[in-house]
């Protein structure tokens, strides 16, 4: 009786693994149904050897690093620009009224829809990719910086005015620290958008190194194993970046009393 209970408990514990295992088994089964099936259902062993091949030739690493680089550069440029514009909009009501509507109008265009335009204007190289990624990071940071600074408790601003802070001092000593939680939230969004648009722009520009380009090449030569390895590494890298950023966020916000 005890053993059965133990078993059931174990099943309950590992039931999350059942689905992936089932899929893998069915996948492997389908891959042995003939050549017509192996086109999509690549044998698991081949996915593994594709992975080893990509690692040994260094292709996976080179392309991943290139993609990461684009994301990070875009995130930094878009992040600082967004911080600046969002802060400006929060400090100056005039700037808010002038920039706000423009911001909300331009934001409506799906980012990847801008790619044909940017390709015509700036060509197909790295600059265009970074432009798209920066824009992707820019939008959420502006919004969260602005809202974070707007949401500052009024008494802090009053103290600042008692201390006769000028606008710059107000910004640096009051608004920016108070808005940090919101800005970090914006940064998390920005990272996700930047990552998606990096991969998307690599698929659409299809020049230069990058995981997107790697996938496109694999698709053209019908190498499903490489496509799968690329998709998995995109997912894992995104997860890893997300996790490290949320650690950074916790570290930066450690002063905040936990609600």
């Amino acid at each position: 009786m005890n053993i059965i209970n133990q078993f059931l408990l174990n099943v309950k514990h590992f039931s999350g693994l059942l689905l992936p295992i089932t899929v893998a088994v069915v996948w492997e089964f389908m891959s042995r149904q003939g050549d017509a099936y192996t086109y999509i259902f690549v044998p698991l062993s081949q996915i593994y050897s594709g992975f080893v091949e990509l690692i040994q030739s260094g292709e996976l690493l080179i392309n991943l690093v290139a993609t990461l680089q684009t994301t990070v550069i875009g995130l930094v440029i878009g992040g600082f620009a967004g911080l600046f514009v969002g802060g400006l909009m929060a400090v100056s009501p005039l700037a808010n009224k002038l920039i706000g509507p423009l911001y909300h109008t331009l934001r409506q265009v799906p980012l990847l829809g801008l790619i044909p335009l940017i390709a015509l204007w700036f060509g197909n190289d790295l600059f265009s990719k970074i432009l798209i990624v920066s824009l992707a990071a820019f939008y959420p940071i502006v919004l969260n910086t602005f809202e974070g600074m707007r949401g500052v408790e009024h008494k802090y601003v009053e103290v600042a005015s008692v201390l006769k802070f000028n606008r710059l001092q107000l910004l640096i000593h009051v608004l920016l620290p108070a808005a940090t939680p919101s800005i970090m939230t914006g940064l998390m969004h920005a990272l996700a958008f930047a990552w998606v648009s990096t991969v998307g722009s690599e698929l659409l520009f299809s020049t230069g190194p990058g995981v997107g380009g790697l996938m496109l090449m694999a698709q053209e030569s019908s190498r499903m194993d490489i496509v799968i390895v690329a998709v998995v590494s995109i997912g894992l890298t995104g997860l890893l970046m997300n996790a490290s950023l949320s650690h950074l966020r916790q570290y930066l916000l450690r002063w905040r009393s936990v609600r």
Partner: protein
Amino acid sequence: MKKIRDLANSLHTNALFFVSPILLLLAWAWVCSAGIFPEQILVSPAGVYQTAHELWGSGELQSHLHDSLYRLVLGFAIGVLLGMVFGVLMGLFKPIDAFFAPSFNALRQVPTIAFIPMLVMIFGVEETFKIVVVAKAAFFPITMATYDAVKGIPRSYFEVSKVYQLSHFSLVRHVILPATVPPILTGLRLALGRSWMVLVAAELIAADSGIGQMMEMGRQMFRIDIVLVGVLVTGLIGFLLDRSLRSVETHLGRWQQS
């Protein structure tokens, strides 16, 4: 007197609202008329309007719009339906949750766009692929929203309805629906925006019709005016989709404020 001041105030703010877009438009027109960039690089606003008019007159724009919106609606409907069913099941039944959650969360990490090459290999570049892409883009946020909404119903609501001996119908009608609809609607809005973006990207990559394909064709023929019309139309549609769901949200959520 106060009314007049209010009116003047609102005119003032509303006028300011249009200042920057109009300035941008004027700057654009001025740069064009000054001839700083050649016509192939920057088409004047009038030129873009002209092209839009021609595309509309020939029925080309409508047919692209029709194809894109058809894909969006069909794919989105499939994604929403599956996502809601899945979200409710995972939210209500622990074993189902435990069974699917790890796989679901792993798949959720991969951006939809990254699946495009794989989906092209499986489904080809025809209609099916685009509808699957849209459905996939919608499925994950909606499942998440539904799951959170169902999980978020306080246990006390069920206890109260038990005390009042509510029938199953009124439990659903008066407790479960009002508690879950607002968060699900927010999920729908997010999902719709993402689906639209992913669809446009998919059409840019592989399509023989649709707004994305129109832009891609414009890019290949160096017709910047067509590309700009496409950008404006995609932006407008994204805006209208978002705005309409937002108004549904405020309409259905109006009891929350009062």
